[in-house]
Structures are given as structure tokens and as C-alpha cells.
């Protein structure tokens, strides 16, 4: 199945790009992610728990980044094995473009499942994949915007009067850690 969507993120392109390369951001944004370790260069190891219709499974697998055009686009590929539940694979082609003060993030997702997941869950797999993608990019957007606000309020508080709207943002300090590395 294939999905395509666009999100407007209120953060500079460099910040969005940095977040895409971060294991911590990915861990927080991948729905059901229990563990994520590794780096953008070598790929990430991940453990994800998900329930697809009648099939609940722990997927162990890898996430790798490829086709990297610095600051513009990359491909996130994930592959997880869920034991008796089968497997899930996905690829997200992500493109970034400046959009005023923020960034336009466009993604095209191609997902594939096999084994029991396909056999038992085929009716719901499309909507499941769409939800996974939507959740991921919504969390991603929230995380990046929260960081951007925090960064902005710390660095240029006068110009960002609405910085306090980030109260409930869960990823406070994340990008800062990234930038300071």
C-alpha cells in the first residue's frame, strides 16, 4: 500500500532535518516503540510493540536512512520481524522545503506486511498503516515544533511571544540536546 501526505511544521528546515536524524526523536515518534538505538550513519535497532486487528506482536528490526540529500530529503526504511505474526516493512520518502518561517514536510509511505499479519489483518492493514504514518508524523511535528519554540524562546524571546504554548509538549529539550552534540 502507498500513502502520501504533507505537513506544515512551524520550525526551521535545519531543525526538522536534525530531528529526522535523531534516534531519540525517532524513538519518541514511532508509535509503540520500546527501544531504539544506533545512529543515522549505521542505522538504528528498534523494538516496536503493535496490535493489528487480532494480531499483537513485538517487532524487532532495523531502521536505516538512505538517499540522503543534506537538509532536503531522505528515505527512512524500516523492517521488523514479529515472529509468528509475520513481518512488516515500510519505507518513507521524506522531503523538506522552506515554507515561510517553517518547513513543509512531504512524505510518501510504502508499507508491506507478510505472514499472519497479511493473512488475518488484510482488511485493516491499510487503515493501520495510515494511522501509523499519521501518528508518526504528528508526533514528529509536535516534537520538532516544541523544540523550535523552546529554542526560539531561549534564543530570541522577544520575537517569539507565544512560546508559552509549548506547555504540554513532551519533547522539551530534545533538539537542544541534538544541537549541542
Amino acid at each position, binding site marked *: 500500500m502507498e500513502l502520501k501526505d504533507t505537513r506544515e511544521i512551524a520550525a526551521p528546515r535545519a531543525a526538522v532535518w536534525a530531528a529526522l536524524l535523531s534516534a531519540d526523536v525517532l524513538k519518541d515518534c514511532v508509535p509503540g516503540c520500546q527501544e531504539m538505538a544506533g545512529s543515522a550513519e549505521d542505522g538504528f535497532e528498534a523494538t516496536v510493540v503493535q496490535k493489528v486487528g487480532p494480531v499483537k506482536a513485538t517487532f524487532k528490526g532495523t531502521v536505516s536512512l538512505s538517499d540522503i540529500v543534506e537538509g532536503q530529503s531522505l528515505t527512512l526504511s524500516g523492517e521488523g520481524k514479529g*515472529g*509468528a505474526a*509475520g*513481518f512488516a516493512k515500510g519505507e518513507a520518502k521524506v522531503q523538506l522545503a522552506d515554507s515561510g518561517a517553517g518547513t513543509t514536510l512531504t512524505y510518501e509511505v510504502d508499507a*508491506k*506486511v*507478510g*505472514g*499472519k499479519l*497479511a*493473512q*488475518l489483518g*488484510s*482488511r485493516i492493514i491499510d487503515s493501520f498503516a495510515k494511522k501509523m504514518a499519521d501518528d508518526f508524523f504528528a508526533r514528529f511535528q509536535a516534537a520538532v515544533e516544541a523544540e523550535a519554540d523552546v529554542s526560539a524562546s531561549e534564543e530570541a524571546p522577544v520575537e517569539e511571544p507565544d512560546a508559552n504554548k509549548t506547555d504540554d509538549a513532551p519533547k522539551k529539550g530534545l533538539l537542544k540536546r541534538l544541537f549541542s552534540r
Partner: protein
Amino acid sequence: MPKDGIGASTKRREDIRFLTGAGNYTDDINIHGQTYAHFVRSDVAHGKINNIDTSAAEAMDGVIKIFTAADFASAGGIPCGWQVTDRFGQPMQEPKHPILAEGKVRHVGDPICVVIAETLEQARDAGEAIEIDIEELEPVLNMKDALKDGATKVHDDLTSNLCYDWGFVEENRDAVDAAIKSAHHVTTLELVNNRLVPNPMEPRVAVGHYARANDEYTLYTTSQNPHVIRLLMGAFVLGIPEHKLRVVAPDVGGGFGSKIYHYAEEAFVTYASKVINRPVKWTSTRSEAFISDAHGRDHVTKIELAMDENYMFTAVRTDTYANMGAYLSTFAPSIPTWLHGTLMAGNYTTPLVYVNVKAVFTNTVPVDAYRGAGRPEATFQLERVIDKAAREIGMDPAELRRRNFIKPEQFPYQTPVAVMYDTGNYHATLDKALEMTDYANFDKRAAESKARGKLRGYGLAHFIEACGIAPSNLVGQLGARAGLYESATVRVNATGSISVFTGSHSHGQGHETTFAQVVAEMIGIDVSQIDIVHGDTSKTPMGMGTYGSRSIAVGGSAMVRATEKIINKAKKIAAHLLEASEADIELKDGKFSVAGTDKSVEWAGVTLAAYVPHNYPLENLEPGLEETAFYDPANFTYPSGAYVCEVEVDPDTGKVDILGFTAADDFGNVINPMIVAGQVHGGVAQGIGQALLENTVFDENGQLLTGSFMDYAMPRASDMPSFDVDHSCQTPCTHNPLGVKGCGEAGAIGSPPAVVNAVIDALQRGGYNVDHIDMPVSPSRVWAAMQQG
């Protein structure tokens, strides 16, 4: 004459145990020390196995042994039982079918390794801990693409994905082309015969038990033909001599063809039981059944029907792609060829027929016979194209059929497609069906439906099938690697009761009742005195089992022959006891009497004398009363019938409601009318299932999307009308002793075209220009076709 003899609607004696939970199915068999096998199967359609790491799994609780292909290096592959020769005189391409995948996996469900553990749960848990590294390869799914140059190959060692390119009758190829070119009218139809998953109520089960004490193997399995499994597995796969291998198929909960074949799991449990020296049980889950039981149908066909100016059929030409799946299942190559091409004359006098079939390997579950096996595919295309032709020329479809029927006086009738029909009366079954369905007043009913906003349609289909499979010498010439006779031993006990050991196997057909009725009729004793024993190679003589509507026609005939031998011998004993000439002895109502006298002896008096031979002609006659007969038929049998379906289509939703379904069959003589009606009901239900509901869908990666009852629409009672079934039109078979033709598959053969013809009729009457809708004729397909038409 016994009250439960031939022609009586005796209730099925086996139903008492089936309905009270007393049946003994394979999964009910548990042997001391039994272990459990769990198959780890491929979840990709096509891939290269780089590595299998079983180390973690082996260390887990309860795990006894994990098997991979390496453990079967000395075993043969699963054999194919039929070799088809192609148009050019070459044998089909026949890939190896290993017990466990060797190096590559070729369909989702292909077994890779097996865990044997103390409990099923431990086996499954360990299965999850096995790390299998598979490099996914491009799957081959579409048959036409699979045959293109440069297509990915399912089997690297074959030259292509083409199993065979078969032509029949090859010598007629040019004549058929010429007849079509010069025809007054040619009707063309392209269609799909949808792939079906058989789904018998009982999934497959196998229990292997090796006894070290005497080096004997026993396999308990859900099979329609235990002797065939013993032969194939013993001789070709595991190299076990037959006297050391016993195969038992106890109560079996439905087969529909899917339990004919020798499956890898059977060979596995038998072999593994010796390796670990403990019994091994495997029970398929429903999910496993969807990806490991052989599927049915899956043809893509173009058919052309040529007619002259009198609308007489002059030629039929077909072009079919038949999906074999990833490996050749036991009888797979014969289904689209000899069980399909030979039926393309149908009930008609068409003089020229040419059938081309390309059998194709794909990365899907193997395909083999499913109730009807090749004959539903033949009947569907022929009866659909005739209906389309009738519409094109503006003739009543019943009339077009009638004028092309073989006439009653033309039998025996030699068709242009090798088979010779011995008897039949197609006009009689057609007239019967039209009368039963009040065809004359259909227009009134259609008007009434229209007043309610519904579209009513009337669909007619006729069928012929070649069953009672089959003359061994003929099928041998056609490529069968087995004989197709049947056997029976009739053992009369000292007190007169009888055990009949038949090579036929009952898995829902009611043989225990009908076969007993035949013997009761022949001897004139009560049916309760006769038991039918089947399904155990250690008890029954070598028999070929049950499929192809062959049990009563072939197995029943063997039983008749053995019973005749019994009666002949019993008459000799009676003659001795009555001090009369054997020629004067008559057997009637279980009593032997001397013609024209009042001297007689009861059946039990004779049987007792046979086993207590104090007063017995020992110098001329052996004691005992037990006889065996093997029967090899001289010809196929040719049941036929006219089926009518009446539907209503809701034009707002496309939903098809079946208002009535009528079957007027000619099965020759009928042993038990109630059981025959039940067989037709079941067959029609499966045919309606194919026509309206069932479909097997793989996604573009070869994943089975319709892999559970959530997505694979099995017909339910609420989808069925009350059937109207008749078998009073009888032209008995001329070459078997009972004059029977077989009725097991008819319903599934004749019903799909009747349903689709009815739906098309409804749409046409409603003003929609729709020629054809592929099965299943689901609401969405009907609605979509209406938007186009």
C-alpha cells in the same frame, strides 16, 4: 426384499456417531508418548534462504528436535501422480517438491523447518525463536506475465514457468481454426474461473507412529485414499516397503478433493517418528489450512463458439491459462487437461473442439482438484458462452441448447474429445427442469419483481461430467502414474453377518449406509447385518479411494462382484445341504431354496456350514466364505443434468438474492435417494459459494489476503435457497453392474454457470448491457458492471 435395500431412503447410520460427538477423527487419536510438531512456514512468497539459526530454539523447554531440509537429504520429493505430455510430444516440466524448503521458499506457507516438542505450545514458542534469514525475491504471480521472456522463475532449474502447453485434440487444431473463420456466427467470451480454498470442516491432521519392536510405521491421516498415500509415500518419498507401512484414515470430516493428495506433513510425521522414536502429531490450524491445503480452479480462459446459419454448433476453441501454484500437487497436471478438455463437447454435437491449456508455475499455494476438478471449469465456460450466443442471435437459451443436444437415439455417442458417452437423455432433464421451474410463466414473475423495483433473472445451465474414474489402461495412456480400479473384500461371518472391506473411503458420502444397502439387496438380509469397513490399509485390499464421483460406480461395482462370488459359493454349499443341483438353487429374501420345491435353508444356515463344515463338500469346496474382487471400469460414467437458478438483483446495491435453485439430474440408478439429494445439495451450495461469495486473493507481493473466514466468504445457510432436486430422469450406465453414474460432484459442476447466467439475464432484462461478470458475482462487481452497462 429387505426394507433398506436399493432405492430406499435409509437414514445414514454414520450420522448417529457424527451427531453425538462419537466420531473418531485423526485428531482424536493420541498415542502414549506422543510429541507435537509445529511447522515454521515462509511468510514471503519467494525468497532465498540464507540461514536458519535454530540454536536459541533448541535450548528451549520441551524441545526435542528441530528438523530442516538437511534432515531429509536422503528422502525423495513429494511425487506428482500424473505426467502430462505437451502439444509437441514432450513431458511436462516437473520440479522437485521437497518435504521442507531447500534453499528457496516458493509460496507463503511453504514449510521451512519443524519443531518437535513435548507440548504444542512449547513447539510453537520454539518456532518463534528460530531465526530465518530470507532474502526476498521478486514473486511470480500473474500467469501471463510469468510466461514472458525474462520473467523471474519459480524454479531455477526449469527452463521457464511453463509446466506444459497442452493441445487437445491437437490434430484438430487447424480444422477448428478454419471452422471458426468460416462460421456464420462466432461468440467469444473471456472469463476467470476464480481460485477457491476447499475448507473442509476438519482441517488436515497427521500422526506418525514408528514401532521399533517390529520396524513398522503407522500413519494416521485425514485422507480420502489411504492406499494411495501408502504407495506414494512408501515407494517414492521415504522408501518404506508397503508391508511395513500402515496408513489409516479414520473418520474424515470432508475432503472435496483437498485430502486426496500426499502432503509433506504426512511424510514428515512418519519419518520424524522414527528419528525421535516417539509418535509425532501435527494438527493444522485453519490459518495453516489456507496456505497449505491445495487450492482449486484458478483458470483464465478465452472461449469461442462457432455456429452455422441454423445455429448448430460447428466448433469450440478455448485458450486457458491454468495456475499450478509453486509445486505440482499429486494430480494437479491432470485437472486442466484430461478432466477438462475431454468435457468441452458438453451435451452437444459440436463436431470440432480444440482446447489449449498452458499450465503455469507461480509463487502461490499449489492448485489441484476441488469438487468437480476441471469439469466445473469446462462447464462454466461452455454454458456461459452458449448463453451469450443465444442472446446475440436472439434465441431462447433453452432452445439453442435443445437443438444442439445429442439426441437420445444417438447413444452411445463418440465425442470429438476422446470420451464416448454410453447413455443420456438431455432433452428429458431439460424438460424436467423447465417444468419444475415453471419456465412458461417466468415473465409474469419478472414483472412482479419489477413492480417491487427488483430485477429478476432466469439462468439455465446443462452439464455433463465424466466420472466414475476411471479405466486404468486408458488413464495410463493419458499419463496417470496409478491404476484407478477399486477393490472390495466381502467377509461373511459364521452367523451370517457380513463385513465389507472397501477400498473406497467415506468422508461424508454415506458409504456405510449405501454400500450396506446394496449387499442387503443382493442377499436379502437385513441391512443391520452388514458393516462397511474402510480407511485402513491393514484391513482393506489395495484400493484407490474416493474422488471423481467414483465410489458407487467403481467401489460399489467391486463390492457387487465380490458379493456375487459369495452368492455363487453359498449356492454350492446350499446345494450340498439341500441335496440338490446347484443350478436349481435360488436365493431370495435371505433364503436358499430348491426351485419348484419347499426345500430351503436360511442364509445363516449356509454361512454356519461354511465355517463349521461338518456336513460340507470338502473334497470340492474350501470352507469359509470370504471373497475379494477388483473392478476396473470399462469406461467413465456420464451423469448429466439441467440446473436452473432464479435470482433477483437489487439495482440499488447490486446484491443478488437466489430465489430458487433447481437440479434435474440423471445419475442412472439411485441407491439411496435421500443421500443423493444431500450430495446434490452440498455440491450446489459449494457452486453457489463459488459463484457469489468465495474468492482467493493474493496481493502484489504474493501475500494471501483472503486467509481467514473474516475475508474468505464461505457460504452460509442464509445465502442458500431451499433446493428443488430431482433425479427421476434415469438412463442407467451400461457398463457397471449397478447401472449407477455417481453424484458427488454434479452440484458443484452445474451450478456456477446457472447462477451467473441468471444474474446476466436479470441485468439484461433490466436494460443493462452486461455480457459477463467474473465470479464471485459480488454486489460490488454487479453494481460496477451496471454502471458500465
